[in-house]
């Protein structure tokens, strides 16, 4: 005990000392506040968006998606595909180096792909048809498949979920279930582990060794030029506090301004923008293992009872700030489909009541997880509950924070033993835009994603999608999948929303992208 006090006192004295001699804040420093805190620093282990955006600052990717959603080479200089579509040969571009100065080699790349291939859904799918992945020399590597696929480059350029960030082989040797401790990257910024204070701030400085591409920046492709010397990412849990800090110039960039707080933003000094036009899909899944949703008719009754407009309005207010969308793979995206979309969007309480009667529902409780600590989700579950109640369901809300929801959701038991019936979540549209990335449509039984629907037909169609040769064939398969998914009520989309980002008028060069990227941003003195 006494040792502890001594030690803590020593450490804090050292910290005070350090603060005393710290250099004054650089003028060319960008102070940003993100929507939620940065927890895990391993963007392969954790699929958190905050961790992903940390990844974009300090790592680079083999390919990048551009604003036209085309895959562009990023770390790769050139590549060839054999005529039978089985052999991909990639060559890395010149000048790639880790922050300690050592060059990036194909060994690093292969180790990174293998780690990612155990963790990411698309990566696992790709590895399942991979025959070999080998280095030809320090700059060239070869991927050989067992059967051709049209989505290899899309997988490598995957912008969200778990993007394929390239790490040094020492870091990539860490099991994917364990956090990395080596934070070297080859991206436009360098992470300062010694300045990192979890829950307070994290600091990045310009990576002087980074050689950008020559093309203009576009989403995750093109030149990633660091135009500020330092980025300080500050944690502010309360959105109102953050908006006030933005107005007063205490921070330069605020990832999310809740729509209700937009009237508070001082538009003479603050610019607001929907940088991420693609936005998010909010959706729910039901528990297929336990009553009442083990009954397909009851699930269909719930689908009929729900209506997107009211739920989205209760959460977001202004109709400008949300989108009604019944497409499983996102609206305005390549695999948007209107199969049953109308039924999914509109509420039909009468139909719901009829279906419930037909199903013989007799009041088994429906337990909905209500996530209370995420401001963009807090009104969703209560409104869903109200709609289900109006249709005759017996609904209980189980309030929890998001983190606990993730662990309680693993319970496959009945509601009387801590189990659940419905959970609400949201995914970025780039994470659900096709059947390979989308978790919500999966139906792989007890070993699969929470909800545990077991519909083998969906799995078969997803495999067909992986092997399909052209877009038209894939689109047809995606439409079919949507039909099956909605008929079985594997999941129900609730609507879409895009964040409004605010930044100081001193800041220039903020780029739109479906993740938060900080290259190309500069800050003027006045």
């Amino acid at each position, binding site marked *: 005990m006494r040792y502890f006090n001594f030690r803590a006192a020593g450490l804090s004295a050292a910290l005070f000392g350090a603060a005393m001699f710290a250099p004054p804040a650089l003028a060319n420093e960008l102070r940003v506040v993100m929507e939620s805190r940065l927890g895990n620093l391993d963007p392969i282990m954790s699929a958190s968006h905050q961790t992903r955006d940390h990844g974009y600052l300090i790592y680079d990717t083999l390919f990048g998606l551009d604003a036209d959603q085309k895959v562009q080479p990023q770390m790769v200089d050139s590549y060839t595909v054999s005529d039978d579509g089985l052999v991909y040969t990639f060559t890395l571009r010149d000048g790639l180096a880790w922050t300690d100065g050592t060059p990036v080699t194909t060994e690093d790349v292969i180790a990174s792909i293998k780690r990612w291939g155990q963790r990411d859904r698309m990566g696992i799918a790709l590895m399942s048809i991979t025959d070999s992945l080998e280095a030809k020399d320090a700059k060239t590597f070869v991927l050989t498949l067992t059967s051709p696929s049209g989505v290899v480059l899309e997988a490598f350029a995957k912008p969200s979920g778990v993007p394929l960030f390239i790490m040094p082989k020492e870091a990539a040797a860490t099991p994917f279930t364990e956090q990395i401790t080596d934070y070297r990257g080859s991206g436009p910024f360098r992470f300062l582990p010694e300045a990192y204070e979890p829950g307070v701030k994290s600091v990045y400085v310009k990576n002087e060794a980074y050689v950008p591409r020559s093309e203009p920046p576009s989403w995750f492709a093109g030149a990633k030029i660091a135009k500020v010397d330092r980025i300080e990412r500050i944690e502010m849990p*309360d*959105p*109102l506090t953050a908006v*006030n800090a933005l107005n007063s110039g205490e921070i330069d960039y605020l990832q999310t301004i*809740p729509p*209700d*707080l937009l*009237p*508070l933003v001082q538009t003479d000094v603050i610019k607001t923008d929907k940088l991420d036009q693609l936005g998010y899909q909010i959706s729910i899944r039901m528990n297929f293992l336990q009553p009442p949703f083990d009954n397909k008719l009851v699930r269909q009754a719930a689908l009929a009872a729900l209506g997107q407009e*009211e*739920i989205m*309005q*209760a959460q977001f*207010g202004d109709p400008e700030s949300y989108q009604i969308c019944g497409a499983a793979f996102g609206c305005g995206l390549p695999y948007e489909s209107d199969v049953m979309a109308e039924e999914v969007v509109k509420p039909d309480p009468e139909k719901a009541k009829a279906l419930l009667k037909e199903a013989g529902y007799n009041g088994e409780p429906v337990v909905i997880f*209500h996530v*209370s*600590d995420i*401001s963009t989700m*807090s*009104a969703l579950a*209560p*409104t869903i509950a*109200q709609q289900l109640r109006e249709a005759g369901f017996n609904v209980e*809300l*189980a*309030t*929890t*924070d998001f983190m*606990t929801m993730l662990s309680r959701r693993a319970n496959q038991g009945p509601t009387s033993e801590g189990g659940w019936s419905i959970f609400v979540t949201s995914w970025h549209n780039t994470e659900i835009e096709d059947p390979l990335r989308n978790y919500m449509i999966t139906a792989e039984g007890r070993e699969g994603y929470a909800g545990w629907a077991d519909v083998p037909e969906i799995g078969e169609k997803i495999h067909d999608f992986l092997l399909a040769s052209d877009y038209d064939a894939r689109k047809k398969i995606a439409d079919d999948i949507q039909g099956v998914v909605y008929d079985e009520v594997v999941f129900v989309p609730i609507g879409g929303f895009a964040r409004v980002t605010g930044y100081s008028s001193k800041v220039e060069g903020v780029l739109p992208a479906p993740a938060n990227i900080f290259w190309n941003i500069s800050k003027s003195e006045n």
Partner: protein
Amino acid sequence: MQKVQDLPGKAPAAARSRPRSRDWPVRVACAFLVFILIVAVVGPFLTSGDPLHINAANRIKPPSAEHLFGTDAMGRDVFARVIYGARTSIIVGFVAALASLLLGLAVGLLAGYFPLADATIMRVMDGIMSIPSIVLAVALVAITGANLGTVLIAIIVPEFPRVVRLVRGVILSLRSEPYVEAAISLATPTWRILFRHMLPNTLAPLIVQGSFVLASAILTEAALSFLGVGLPPEIPSWGNIMAEGRTYFQLRPGLIFFPGIFLALTVLSINLIGDALRDRFDPKLEKRH
């Protein structure tokens, strides 16, 4: 939150120097508390609003004739929520206070009368009391999940050891009184000694302590809700209304101030009454001045 009752000082003696004529704060406090109790009981008749009904088209509106305190972020009527919130706060407060007293009384009697159990019990009580109460409550609720039961436990657990300490003190001092020693030597059954001689003497300090536990429980519930680890947000409680209003506080300060004023006045009344009770029950104070 604030453990007034722990401090070794004496009350300012609301009615000490010239009683009667200066009793007005206590009288006002009693009246207000009675008012809140009535609101808690007949609340549903005071408002036609449904504290749970979500009205998506009518969010965060300022006070109006239809919604006296405006509406919250889900379009629910804040006046109705504050009225129903009185019931929640009062129930949480009274149940927590009563349970702390009963539990504290039982354990305190045990510790005070049976020296064998005393050491162990008091070490455990010291242990619980050395964990700062709000920290213990936050950990308890967050870990066991937020519902009425766990919030009550989270308030009772840090609260009852103080009652144990109080009761034990009274019992220890009584044990050496001649009439108790006489009863023991006459082989009077233990339960009889406890109930006949001990229990009545603990009553006055318990009532005083109870009023402070009540005030503290209402404040703790609000603080827990404010930190996001209190009652489920669906349940209207003053703490929850404020917690949910936090984000919109600048647009609608009423979301914090309306429930906040009710909360502060209720706790103020309870504390004033508690002080008055303490002065009445503490004869030493009367003698001294």
